[in-house]
């Protein structure tokens, strides 16, 4: 019996695996975003993990992940503290509303579509909050055309990551399969 199938049987291991994967996503994101290779920094691992959380876990769990990972990103940020955490949290809330009313949590297209729309919402909220803080004199950073170009690159690369993540999860679990196809 392989390790993965063993872990699949043992449901009590799952929360631990989820936590380890989430910590891994945060660390990988920090390592890549702090590096100098631009394109790797555009793959938003934390956001991809958040989209999966919104699909598969409860509202409370996805909000906790958004707040904790956002605050960790804020430690490494040059912008006012709390900006990334608040943007991630509000984007998570918007995705929760979308998944409750429009999207399904059992479809490939829904996952990727929700991820793409969610990322645009996240960047919009981030831009709005940054401009708001700039207006009130809390920061000198402003949004330029470069930010939207980065958004487009991040959108493409993070969507590709979500496609890969979907197939990995679908290979090892029934979470994304329709109920009638689940065992």
């Amino acid at each position, binding site marked *: 019996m392989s390790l993965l199938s063993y872990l699949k049987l043992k449901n009590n291991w799952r929360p631990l695996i989820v936590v380890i994967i989430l910590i891994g996503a945060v*660390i990988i*994101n*920090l*390592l*890549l*975003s*702090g*590096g*100098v*290779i631009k394109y*790797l920094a555009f793959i938003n691992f934390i956001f991809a993990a958040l989209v999966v959380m919104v699909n598969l876990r409860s*509202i*409370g769990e996805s*909000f*906790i992940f*958004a*707040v904790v990972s*956002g*605050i*960790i*990103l*804020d*430690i*490494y*940020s*040059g*912008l006012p*503290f*709390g*900006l*990334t*955490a*608040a943007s991630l*949290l509000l984007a998570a*809330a918007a995705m*929760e*509303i979308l998944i*409750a009313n429009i999207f399904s949590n059992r479809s490939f297209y829904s996952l990727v579509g929700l991820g793409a729309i969610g990322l645009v919402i996240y960047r919009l909220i981030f831009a709005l909050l*940054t401009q708001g803080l700039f207006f009130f004199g809390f*920061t*000198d*950073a*402003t*949004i*330029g055309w*470069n*930010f939207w170009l*980065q958004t487009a690159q991040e959108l493409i690369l993070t969507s590709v990551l979500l496609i890969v993540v979907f197939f990995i999860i679908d290979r090892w679990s029934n979470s994304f399969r329709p109920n009638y196809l689940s065992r």
Partner: protein
Amino acid sequence: MLDRLLKSLIYSLAAILIAVFFHYLGWLSPVENLFILLLKPLQSGAYELSQKTKNFSDYWLRKRNIIAENQKLIEEIKQLSLEQSKIKSLEEENSLLKKELNFIDEDKKQFVAARIITGVSDPLSQTVIIDRGAKDGIVKGLAVSADRGVLVGKISEVFDDYSKVTLLSDNKSRVAATVQNLDHTVGLVEGQYGLSFAMTNIPQNQDIRQGDLVVTSGLEGQIPKDLLIAKVESVKTVESEIFKTAILQPIIPLSNLSYVVVIIP
């Protein structure tokens, strides 16, 4: 469902506000310091690896231009060697005159060498984190240079063991500077959306040319005078405006830094 979502959202926003409050009071500082300390080995390793990969890919992309660039550099070295011999004789003359006048040497700067651990996580800042902090005598506003003569940024935030350095190309960066021309033009070097930097607030009557060197003016208390900042690449003049802007070319690429020096005046 909406009730549950609103309730969770309010609690989460409250948690963020509390964290922000604690951060600005400095109560979160030990936790932030510890977090950076724990991830330091991984991050400095990843940063170095990404630097090496970038240098390697840059080399292959620029291979064609390297021969021409090499020829140009050889010519420049010849010119600089001539200038250096002149400077050396002037230095000797200067020290001799200083001795005769019993001149007190006020240049007692301290230098703290630091290694860059990582860049920052947000898309709008051009900031790096270095492995020296308050324990090493670092304070906010100090000049950070590559080697000892080329300014690359300023200290923007200090932890016990680490500091954040805002690079010159950051939108928030502003440094008082002088052009080494006949007018000794004074202006402000400002970051341009993380892409480059420019010298602003230059009166229209000042004569600035391509290739002029820009150095720190020493008007800011914690930034020493005459640190090299950049070379003038072009000058943008609009006749109806009071000031003109010089677009600057960095002396060294700011994305290739691994080690820096913090100057304590």
